[in-house]
């Protein structure tokens, strides 16, 4: 079977995959990084968003072999030194979740937004979240959390 190697959350990993193995399957089933969720499996809901070479992508619609040689960051890779990432902290503070299923993807997507645009307005945040679907909270607190994280991360 083909082998893939990549850096996941700062750690070099290698594994055997089939041609059809999706990146999200590799992360969840081989690396046991189950924080990345599979929601719709049709690249619409965004629960599976991770970063590949710094860009947010839907890991249910990327083959593991397409990510060969890349640097991948999952929700497990955001916290550092035992402390939550400011985006995670903001989601907790503003209750930007209800059931929590979409949250890993929301957080990863929002971090990518702030990397590109540190000061987004509400409209830009809502537009950016086009690819992330939440069926509980109606987005209001998610948007609030991202605005708050943006403020905190700008310092």
């Amino acid at each position, binding site marked *: 079977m083909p082998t893939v190697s990549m850096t996941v959350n700062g750690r070099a990993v290698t594994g055997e995959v089939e041609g*059809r193995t999706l990146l999200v399957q590799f992360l969840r089933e081989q690396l046991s990084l189950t924080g990345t969720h599979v929601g719709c499996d049709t*690249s*619409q809901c965004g629960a599976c*968003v991770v970063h590949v070479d710094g860009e947010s*992508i839907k890991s249910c619609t990327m*083959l593991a072999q*397409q990510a060969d040689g890349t640097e991948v960051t999952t929700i497990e890779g955001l916290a550092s030194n035992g402390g939550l990432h400011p985006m995670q902290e903001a989601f907790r503070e503003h209750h930007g979740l209800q059931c929590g299923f979409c949250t890993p993807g929301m957080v990863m997507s929002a971090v990518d937004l702030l990397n590109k645009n540190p000061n987004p307005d509400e409209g830009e945040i809502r537009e950016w979240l086009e*690819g992330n679907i939440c069926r509980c909270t109606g987005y209001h607190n998610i948007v609030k959390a991202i605005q708050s994280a943006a403020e905190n991360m700008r310092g």
Partner: protein
Amino acid sequence: MYDFNHHRPGSIDAAASALSGADDGKILAGGMTLIPTLKQRLASPSDLVDLGAIGELKGICEEGGAVVVGAMTTHAAVAKDATVKAKIPALAHLAEGIGDAQVRNCGTIGGSIANNDPAADYPAALVGLGATVRTNKREIAADDFFTGMFETALDDGEIITAVAFPVPEKAGYAKFANPASRYAIVGVMVATGPAGTRVAVTGAGPCVFRLSDAESALGSGISADAVANVSVAADGLNSDLHASSEYRANLVNVMLRRAAAAAG
């Protein structure tokens, strides 16, 4: 998804050999349509030839009076590129409106046009701007490239390498997006420049088409007023759960006026 052999060649020639050596090989670009298609078992190729590791297929440059976009350049890269924004802002605007942020980070111009989805945005850009598709074998004018629903002039195993867009004097793109997918229910590109005055419509019919009545009406200047009375017949337009053909016919006029206003 059925299994397949995955190839990740480092050059266009190696990709062409991998394709010709496969029983039923398919090209994998960004995968935004192909991977969902494989998951649904609507296709089951023996081999996928992934173009993701071929550096020469990525990137944007200026060449004479044209902006040349490598086939594996993502929609996000086109949307934020300084040259595209300066020379053809309507193209950057179009790329920024495709799908969602994560789709734009993976989906590529080459993959989009090779697939030729009737509701895709890029076919309107290529036909409206009078672009040329470059492949590993030849150059194909956009007018000859899109031949029907999900059909193109590409031969089996032919690989798109880049798209050259002549820099227009004016161009504007407007679309009425499906609120769920952001595919165009109707999208219209209006442009005037070295390729003449051109109007291309996507989403409305089975394949992108030019609207000659609108092109004549815009001949003496680009404005929304000039095309206020241009209409298309509903016959032959797409009709589905999102919009009837009559509704799409009306949208063509509305998007045409908006695109002309954006270009003017």
